[in-house]
């Protein structure tokens, strides 16, 4: 058991660190300043271009697609080094790299790869995801948005939701129903769509956080050329799975701010009675349990990293981190508010820490739902790791239009 890099990893880390030290500072976002969304996207694409020029844009992508053709370990090491800087890497960049490109590379034609791969790597194209619908979230295959063939085009009608940054994206990856007479997983097809196409209406959703970075996207007689279909007609579900597998590998707990250690220090310096909040046995127990869980997540990730560096696929084990992190994040943000007592529910303008805790407490609810809801992840773990039976599906083998 050791925590050191292998010689290859160490060499790549040095290379990555040197390059980042020379290039990243100029692209860092100013801390504590909220940028205009369009400004942030512009900075994000500029940083992406710099990465692409140096050959670090798509570490896992094959060289034929303009990527580095590197190992997962290299991607992990580069990600760790890149995370030392406050760089613009929002969904507008991530969706293109980890969702659109893999699906185009695996299911697309040579022409489609030619058309989209380099432009996405260079940051010239930003992407959004048009998957979920009001009645299709965890049950994604229940999408109702219809695509009907008309000459060389598909005519799309329907509504998508939770499309992060769709208001500022160039293109979208879309899953739509092309044959409702088939059972639901079989009648789907996959498209890429230019977000400037007439008939697309992106409306921001007012979220509980107060922000509006998710959208609902309406399609009214939107014409998508057949050349923008990815994979065969009816292959939409396989394409979506390619996308979602990529999504899972990208998730995981990350230390947000100071973590529980910060909370312990906060309690140790916050007066309560004649001593501090940390003199309370109840506070100590709550913080100790939270700290133990946070550290356990970190060590679990070390185990996953070890598997990945050996070329093993953690599979559904990767769901453990996301499942554990999201709930603990919510619980500890709630605990942080309570620790502040009345100051936790109303703060002065300069008390930015409290504002951040509020944000965590609100955002944690989205984390428990997005990218694999808690309940979906529990199903995955019980079925794929513990080998328990799948759920009974009332819609199995039933044509979608008869449901």
């Amino acid at each position, binding site marked *: 058991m050791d925590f050191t890099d292998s010689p290859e990893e160490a060499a790549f880390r040095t290379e990555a660190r040197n390059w980042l030290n020379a290039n990243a500072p100029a692209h860092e976002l100013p801390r504590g300043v909220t940028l205009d969304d369009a400004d942030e996207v512009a900075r994000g694409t500029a940083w992406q271009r710099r990465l692409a020029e140096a050959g670090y844009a798509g570490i896992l992508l094959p060289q034929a697609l303009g990527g580095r053709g590197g190992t997962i370990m290299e991607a992990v090491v580069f990600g760790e080094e890149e995370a030392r800087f406050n760089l613009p890497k929002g969904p507008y960049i991530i969706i293109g790299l980890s969702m659109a490109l893999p699906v185009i590379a695996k299911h697309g034609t040579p022409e489609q790869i030619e058309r989209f791969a380099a432009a996405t790597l260079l940051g010239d194209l930003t992407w959004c995801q048009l998957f979920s619908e009001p009645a299709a979230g965890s049950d994604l295959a229940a999408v109702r948005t219809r695509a009907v063939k008309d000459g060389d085009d598909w005519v799309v009608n329907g509504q998508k939701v939770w499309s992060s940054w769709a208001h500022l994206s160039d293109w979208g990856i879309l899953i739509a129903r092309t044959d409702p007479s088939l059972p639901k997983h079989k009648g789907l097809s996959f498209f890429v769509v230019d977000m400037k196409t007439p008939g697309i209406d992106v409306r921001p959703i007012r979220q509980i956080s107060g922000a509006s970075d998710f959208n609902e996207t309406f399609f009214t007689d939107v014409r998508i050329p057949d050349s923008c279909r990815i994979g065969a007609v009816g292959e939409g579900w396989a394409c979506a799975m390619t996308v979602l597998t990529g999504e899972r590998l990208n998730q995981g707990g990350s230390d947000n701010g100071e973590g529980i250690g910060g909370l312990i220090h906060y309690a140790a310096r916050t007066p309560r009675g004649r001593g501090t909040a940390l003199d309370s*046995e109840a506070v*100590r127990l709550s913080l*100790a*349990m939270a700290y133990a869980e946070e550290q356990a997540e970190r060590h679990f990730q070390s185990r996953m990293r*070890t598997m990945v560096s050996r070329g093993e696929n953690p599979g559904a084990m990767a769901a453990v981190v996301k499942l554990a992190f999201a709930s603990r994040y919510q619980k500890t943000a709630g605990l942080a508010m309570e620790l502040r007592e009345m100051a936790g529910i109303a703060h002065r303008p300069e008390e930015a820490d409290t504002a951040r805790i509020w944000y965590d407490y609100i955002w944690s609810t989205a984390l428990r739902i997005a990218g694999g809801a808690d309940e979906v992840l*529990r199903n995955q773990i019980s079925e794929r790791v513990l080998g*328990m*039976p799948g759920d*009974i599906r009332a819609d199995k083998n039933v044509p979608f239009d008869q449901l």
Partner: protein
Amino acid sequence: MNFDLSDEQKMLAEQANGLLAERSPPDRLRQLIDAGAEWDEPLWRELAEMGFLGAAIPEQFGGVGMTRLDLAVISEELGRANAALPFFSSIVLAAEAIMLAGSEEQKARWLPALASGDTIATFAYAEGPGGWTADVLTAQVRDGVLDGQKGPVADAGIASLAIVLAHDGSGQPTLGLVSLDHPGVTRTKLASFDQLRAHYELRFDGVPFEPLAAAPADEVLAKLFDLAAVQAAFEAVGGADACLKMARDYAMDRQIFGRPLAGYQAIKHKLADIFVAIELARSSAFYAAWAATYGEEELPAAAAAARLSATGAFEQAARENIQVHGGIGYTFEANCHFYYRRERTLATAIGNREVWANRLIDSFLTQNANVAEVA
């Protein structure tokens, strides 16, 4: 990074697992309980022959000279089998105490006997429910002679040697070796919650006390309990894992409303949560065992965190295992109860949740003292 057991450690686990599965199956545990046995003596001999007892004892003292991480691998398997052995008392606590604080002469005299299993030792620290800090200890050493009462003490019915925690009259704690065969020792058997781990009350009337004096007793005690917490965490992870597998296998087999019980989300999600708790606890236990071997400074916080996580995982697994089994889980014939009882024993010995939560917070603050000053 290589955050995993080595191939040799995995082989060691397989060896221990194979032996315990064969020699200590649930029917054997039932047999021991029915016979009123306090331990599985033939199994103890076999463990000794395989070198498991002396795994972490240096070769010069009759051991195998492996690390505490190797010992932890064995602890996990003992937890999985819920073995009826004085391993935690004799090896994890007593032998470790002698390794930490014994003189060379004491080590040479006792460690080979503990490694061979010929001598069984225990560690007498508690005095009822009031903790064991120096200010509450009543057992007292004067002029090399021990008087007072200790208990509950695990495995004291079969042990011939005890490491006793007492005070020296000046308010300082002291640790020393005491022969339990001395006529001044009275052993009174207590009713033990764990039917496979007997506890005793020990009364000492003028019994010779030989101090372990190579280090201050309070420091030795803290380090000893940190190291024991690591082993207990592995034992708990092993027990929790056994409960999870038992619950899953039962749910897969049991038909209810025309399909396997395992197909219902109420059961699937319960077991998925237990799996998560176990794997998180295992990860922290790995880290703590690494710290016990290589990272002196990280050990206190790492041991406490592993202890809390593993205790929580075993608690959840032991309770829900009976729940998943339903009525059959309440019978002596089912195997759930061994773990349900052992879990409470493990969760309480060497300090309850409150004790380890305090240890974690205090160690965290010590380890990050400079950060606190800046903040």
